[in-house]
């Protein structure tokens, strides 16, 4: 018995002494930083990569002509300057009756691939050739297709003229126009270009991903195991000077529930934006503050727009008064405070505050504060009468009942559903919850418009991008158009469609702003979609990481990874 008591005492002592508090000795140094990601990644061929984790990591090894920085402003990366009509590097001209644009792009003088080969316009021209090959499975070809021709300066291969097939105001926003190392990839492309998916299967990115010549960013890949980890080491030829951290290791930890355990056990030093869910981060943040743990939990409102699509084929929802009543009845600030600690702001419409086109001016859009009486009045006007059972019925005796669907297993969304069910119940609407696995929900229910009432999910947008795909009449998915388009509510406003067609061709900034604000007015006035909140990006960093900033948009923090550095833990301790 004495032995058992002694063992329990020793165990307890070990547990107590090993519960971590703020300890500087275990903080990472500039020697190595280990980052956890919860999502899988594919190979790093920029032409075909589509996973978010791959893009996040690719930015450590590959750069493009330009990027959106943390302040949501475009800045050149491989390009010396972003050409524009104002700075004279671009001009409009007419060819065969079509208005087009010519823009001069010049690559920075010391841009090189990781094997020391110069990076020139030839690499961009080659990338375009690969992207346009019918046998290559590039997902978004439009980026490359919009450039009709690339003419390389005979005297300076780093200077070239892009001839755009249409004159669009955002011609110079081509952050996804990647370069491919022609000196390595050309022979492979020539050999396999006739074979479907032949190039990508034999590309060096697939067969030899640690070849430094494939990369031009601050790091090169020195080890890669799909599904497990990637090791990045400094690229001595990086045009922006040496990165400050010697080595970065990214590890896939697909179970988000164990990310915190991995962090606190020292398996990883940091959790990337592709890691914790919001509820986990909120709980971890409380533990960090309560127990003084050596981490920063970063929250940054993003461009991810959580919303409710209303299926306008539903006869109940065809009446705009019912749709407006639904919005008035939701206490969105209350929702975000109760469930998210106020760290995810309520949404007004599909554009987030980070977007330069954003407005919340009540003179320009229709704003819906929480007004339950107004909601009830609108339903009364629409002849939905409240009966003794607490629900509303129309003249045909039909009960006002809606089905709300979302992705099963997403705890945050399921909580929001219950909140909405309760709020709509208070104005006499019966709400049925019916959730589906993400695969079914996104694979058939939303994109084939099979939800009968309300569908809750999120859209990711980029700043100043045309929302044609989700708002135009011709983007309502149908069997005839192969279920393309993302206008899932089935909202058709001819004026909005017309405005969105004009938007890309309008070069005057103020006029563009007027166009988009008119679109937003119709969008908020007709309520085809109920805005809920803007999601926040989350990451967890060690307290000594400097130069790191969560951008909140799709251009990740790794676009400036060369600025990251880890302050010496000893100096921090002495301070």
């Amino acid at each position, binding site marked *: 018995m004495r032995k058992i008591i002694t063992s329990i005492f020793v165990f307890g002592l*070990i547990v107590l002494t*090993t*519960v*971590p508090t703020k300890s500087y000795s275990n903080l990472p140094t500039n020697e*190595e930083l280990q980052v956890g990601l919860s999502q899988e990644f*594919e*190979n790093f*061929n920029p032409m075909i*990569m*589509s*996973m978010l984790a791959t893009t996040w990591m690719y930015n450590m090894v590959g750069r493009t002509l330009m990027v959106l920085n943390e302040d949501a402003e475009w800045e050149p990366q491989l390009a010396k300057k972003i050409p524009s009509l104002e700075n004279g590097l671009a001009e409009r001209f007419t060819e065969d009756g079509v208005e087009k644009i010519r823009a001069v792009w010049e690559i920075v003088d010391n841009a090189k691939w990781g094997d020391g080969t110069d990076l020139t316009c030839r690499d961009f021209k080659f990338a375009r050739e690969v992207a346009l090959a*019918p*046998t290559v*499975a590039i*997902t*978004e*070809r*439009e980026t490359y297709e919009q450039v009709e021709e690339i003419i390389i300066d005979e005297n300076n291969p780093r200077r070239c003229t892009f001839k755009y097939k249409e004159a669009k105001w955002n011609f110079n926003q081509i952050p996804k126009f990647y370069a491919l190392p022609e000196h390595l990839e050309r022979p492979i492309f020539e050999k396999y270009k006739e074979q479907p*998916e032949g190039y*990508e*299967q034999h590309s060096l*990115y*697939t067969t030899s991903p640690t070849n430094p010549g494939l990369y031009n960013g601050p790091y090169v890949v020195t*080890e890669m*195991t*799909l*599904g*497990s*980890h990637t090791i990045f080491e400094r690229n001595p030829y990086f045009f922006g000077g040496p990165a400050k951290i010697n*080595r970065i*290791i990214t*590890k*896939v*930890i*697909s*179970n988000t*529930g*164990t990310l915190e*355990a*991995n962090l*606190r*056990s*020292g*398996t990883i030093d940091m959790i990337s934006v592709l890691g914790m869910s919001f509820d986990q981060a909120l709980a971890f943040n409380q533990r960090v503050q309560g127990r003084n743990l050596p981490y920063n939990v970063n929250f940054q409102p993003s461009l991810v727009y959580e919303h409710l699509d209303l299926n306008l084929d539903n006869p109940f929802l065809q009446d705009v008064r019912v749709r407006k009543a639904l919005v008035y009845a939701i206490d969105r600030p209350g929702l975000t405070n109760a469930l998210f600690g106020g760290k995810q702001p309520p949404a007004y419409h599909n554009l987030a505050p980070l977007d330069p086109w954003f407005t919340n001016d009540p003179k320009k859009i229709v704003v819906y504060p929480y007004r339950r009486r107004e909601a009830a009045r609108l339903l009364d006007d629409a002849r939905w009468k409240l009966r003794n059972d607490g629900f509303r019925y129309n003249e045909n005796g039909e009960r006002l009942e809606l089905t709300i669907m979302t992705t099963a297993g997403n705890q945050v969304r399921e909580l929001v559903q219950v909140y909405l069910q309760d709020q709509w119940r208070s104005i006499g609407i019966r709400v049925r919850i019916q959730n589906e696995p993400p*695969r*079914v929900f*996104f*694979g*058939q229910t*939303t*994109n084939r418009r099979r939800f009968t009432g309300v569908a809750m999910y999120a*859209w*990711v947008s980029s700043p100043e991008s045309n929302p044609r*795909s989700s708002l135009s009449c011709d983007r309502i998915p149908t069997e005839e*158009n*192969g*279920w*393309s*388009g*993302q206008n899932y509510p089935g909202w058709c406003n001819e004026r909005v469609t017309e405005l969105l067609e004009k938007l890309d061709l309008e070069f005057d900034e103020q006029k563009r702003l007027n166009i988009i604000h008119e679109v937003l007015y119709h969008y908020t006035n007709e309520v085809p979609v109920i805005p809920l909140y803007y999601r926040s990006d989350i990451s967890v960093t060690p307290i000594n990481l400097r130069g790191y900033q969560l951008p909140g948009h799709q251009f990740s923090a790794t676009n400036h990874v060369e600025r990251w550095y880890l302050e010496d833990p000893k100096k921090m301790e002495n301070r």
Partner: protein
Amino acid sequence: MTSFIIRRLIQTGIVITLLSFFCYLLMTLMPGDPVDLMISANPNITSEDIERLRALYGLDQPVLVRYWNWVSTILSGDLGYSRTYRVPVQELMGPRLINTFILSAAALLVSILIALPLGILAALKKGTRLDYSINMFAFTGISIPSFWLAIVLIIVFAIWIPLFPASGTRTVGVDLSFGELLFDRIRYLVLPVLSLSLMSIGTFVRFTRSAMIEAMANDYIRTARAKGLSWPRIIVIHGFRNALIPLITILALSFSGLFSGAIITETVFSYQGVGSLVYESIISNDFNVAMVAFMISVSMVLIFNLLADILYGVADPRISYS
């Protein structure tokens, strides 16, 4: 016996072919194809892109044509190309299959080594405190959910008492000698093996115990004791051998799962095995990976069942296939 084995092998081939077709058919019946998933993830995909990608992936072809294309590729010795990871399937699955085999085999070995002696002991000491204790341990093992146990093991042995790593397969970014690598791999295996074994130990203990109790109650055991044979000889040669038939069945089924992977354990410990890969491939409609994994699972089940049938004859000469 030879004709029995040949007959069973032919049957196995037919079953694999039929099941592969039904599995392929079922995958095509799942909502959404790979292009649908791309559309939902990328609002900039145009209808032209959709048409082009469907044609490139062969998704515009009838199911029979697609199945035949897949079979032709497999028969030519090429396992295909993973559209999720953008690498050949053999390159993707090879290392993961080995990892899964190491994990499952280690867990099975540990389970057998612990469960068989415990099961025999419980049977021989039936109704005693020892028997009740072993039974309680077995039921605890069967009842504890593996994901819960895995998380508790991580908290206790990786955070509170940092003896073992919380996740992964090996230490990355360091050069290790063979001995160091072996030790490193074992360190990473301890927690997942512990988590996986506990449930199997419980199951094996229960089966062994009941089979041994039944075997030890037979007349030939009494005869053997009357003849004055040693107790260990009676237990091993007369008792345990006769208790082997039900054990062979359950062990054969366990062995057949060596390459299928343990999805929950692999996911919680971020162990790079085939279980989580198969799950991801099904979710993301990565046909080639899912189908190869399915073929391996089906083949293993059929082959180990055949092996079990053969072993029945070895364990009990009264069973004959002539």
